């Protein structure tokens, strides 16, 4: 009945004329390629104006010295990048007086210091990325092995494991802020006694804050790793295990000789995804500790873009470049597999 009605209205439509009908007819007569490109126009308007344009413009801005309150921007070519890598501009860096306030006096944290703030940011970001992704992969693998099995309460365990992934970043940060804040946190004392965290002012101590931020990230994103690895596990042909059992392989051998090699590609993809994501760290640092204590690359951009636009743009573009290079690896893989 409904189809009849539809075809009825359709035939009536085709007899009518007017701008809408004309457009419809024009759309219908477009070739497949033209039609495809036409439908992609909105996507590329959004992505072009919100992502591509800012990226190019950031690159342009990074070639100017544009410090708040010093008059018109001056074109300096790649000077900002040179200064950044050599640490030349550090004394004039407007952030440097407010940035990393306490660390100047403390020599015990070799990875954060005002001399070479860019290097500090790079080291902080890489350290965070490597450590958090490593633990997320190992723990995520364990969780995936659990979720891969049939057992009572599996749904419950799965929800429990996914929940941290879905927690708003600001609340995740708040949880760990409260967990390690010296006036509330019961954990701080234990970990300080064990020599892992600084006993006082824990959240303003670069190393302690970095550890806390890393723990918070592991808590949240391990679930994501687990899900990706689980997808890999579930694509393993179950009959292989039956064959192995008949051949007398132990569980450990089954894991080492069947599961691991077959899941490794999925783990590789998951690790790359997470690495790219971890390199962008900003919000968690901002709420749990402070960008002046744990200066990640994105942190540097946000903290300085209102005062020194040129330098902030240079940091932003370098960050994008590092992440872009990693993304190329992912894309190359995808391309090879025949996208």
């Amino acid at each position, binding site marked *: 009945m409904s189809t009849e009605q539809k075809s009825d209205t359709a035939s009536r439509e085709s007899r009518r004329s007017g701008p809408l009908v004309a457009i419809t007819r024009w759309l219908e007569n477009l070739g497949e390629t033209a039609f495809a490109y036409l439908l992609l126009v909105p996507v590329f308007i959004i992505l072009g104006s919100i992502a591509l344009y800012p990226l190019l413009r950031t690159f342009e801005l990074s070639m100017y010295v544009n410090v708040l309150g010093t008059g018109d921007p001056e074109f300096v070519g790649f000077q900002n990048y040179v200064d950044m890598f050599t640490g030349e501009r550090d004394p004039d860096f407007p952030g440097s007086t407010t940035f990393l306030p306490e660390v100047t006096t403390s020599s015990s944290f070799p990875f954060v210091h005002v001399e070479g703030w860019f290097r500090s940011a790079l080291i902080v970001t890489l350290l965070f990325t490597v450590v958090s992704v490593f633990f997320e992969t190992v723990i995520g693998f364990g969780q995936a092995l659990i979720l891969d099995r049939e057992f009572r309460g599996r*749904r419950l365990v799965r929800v429990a494991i996914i929940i941290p992934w879905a927690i708003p970043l600001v609340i995740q940060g708040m949880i760990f802020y409260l967990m390690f804040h010296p006036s509330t946190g019961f954990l701080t004392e234990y970990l300080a006694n064990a020599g892992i965290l600084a006993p006082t002012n824990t959240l303003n101590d670069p190393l302690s804050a970095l550890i806390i931020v890393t723990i918070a990230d592991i808590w949240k994103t391990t679930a994501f790793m687990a*899900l990706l690895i689980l997808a890999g596990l579930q694509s393993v042909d179950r009959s292989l295990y039956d064959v192995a059992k008949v051949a007398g392989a132990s569980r450990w051998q089954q894991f080492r000789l069947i599961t691991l090699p077959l899941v490794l590609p999925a783990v590789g993809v998951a690790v790359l995804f997470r690495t790219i994501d971890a390199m962008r760290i900003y919000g968690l640092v901002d709420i749990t500790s402070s960008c002046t204590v744990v200066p990640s690359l994105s942190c540097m951009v946000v903290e300085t873009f209102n005062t020194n636009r040129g330098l902030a743009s240079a940091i932003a573009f370098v960050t994008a470049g590092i992440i872009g290079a990693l993304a190329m690896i992912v894309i190359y893989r995808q391309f090879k597999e025949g996208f």
Partner: protein
Amino acid sequence: MATTTESRSDSTDSDDGVLARWTQGVIGDDEKRARLYRALFYVASAFFLVTTLFPFYWLLVLAITPNSSILTGDWSLPVVGIEFPHPQGFNPEAFVDVFQQVPLHLHVFNSFVLATATTIIVLLIASLAGYVFGRLEFPGKGPLMLAVLMISYFPPAAFLIPLFDAFLGNAVVIPFLGIELFQPPRLVNTPGSMILPFSALFMPLAIFILTTFYSQIPDGLEDAARVEGTTRLGALFRVIMPLSAPGVATAAVLTFISVYNEYFFSSIMALENVPENWSPLVGAILSYQDQYTTDFNLMAAASIVGVIPILILVIVAQERIVSGLTAGGLKE
């Protein structure tokens, strides 16, 4: 299960002989081994459950404990004497106060509006793209998909500076040519300054999920609709989209959660953390942290209130989330 674990720990601290015998037993006896694996399995599951859920327990404890008790910092259990967080006193008023100090409900409302608007925009535009990538063959398809993928990887910090400029109402200039294109309206403190970046950030994932689902609809169904006289776009919105309802729901749920959870643009594009500036949930939590620096019970209560909508969504839509995350992560 409990007995196996116990016997294991017992044997480790008694003499080596018992341990050796036990190990021998495990190696030799299939049933014992199976029991060991099961025990390990339950111990590991319990461990993961406790570690993932403990932080929520901690929030709840902080929220209902009166703030004065929190500030003493003494969490020792009454009888045992060891430190373990537990409610000290019962102060449910925190959940009332939390709406009075900062208009938390308005912030959450803003979050909902932003998330809903973004989800609708993303679904509409990503549906067109998903249809194109999933069902049409045309030159340049591969490179275009890769371009979309590539953009999704860049950090928001790389987009921030020019976007912020444009949203302040400064002229948009063609990079390197210096030609002024147009003067955009001042968008900071309005939903637009967040919905636009959110749409771009979360569009690629939705496109990939929808591409996967749309490509699985048999051609015959689309052809049948076309024979009936439906236009190509009509077939997309009246046949393909309804048939891919699970995929559309997955993309919708993931986009909604992503926007609700976003931090970067949410904290920057509303210049002050007040609901009049369209500051979402992020602004409310930051207000508590910045202005009510010692009201730890309110910080915890605000976090609980903010997390509840997401918690409900996760429990209701867990199948969709799992399939969406794995489809988005492992594009086959």
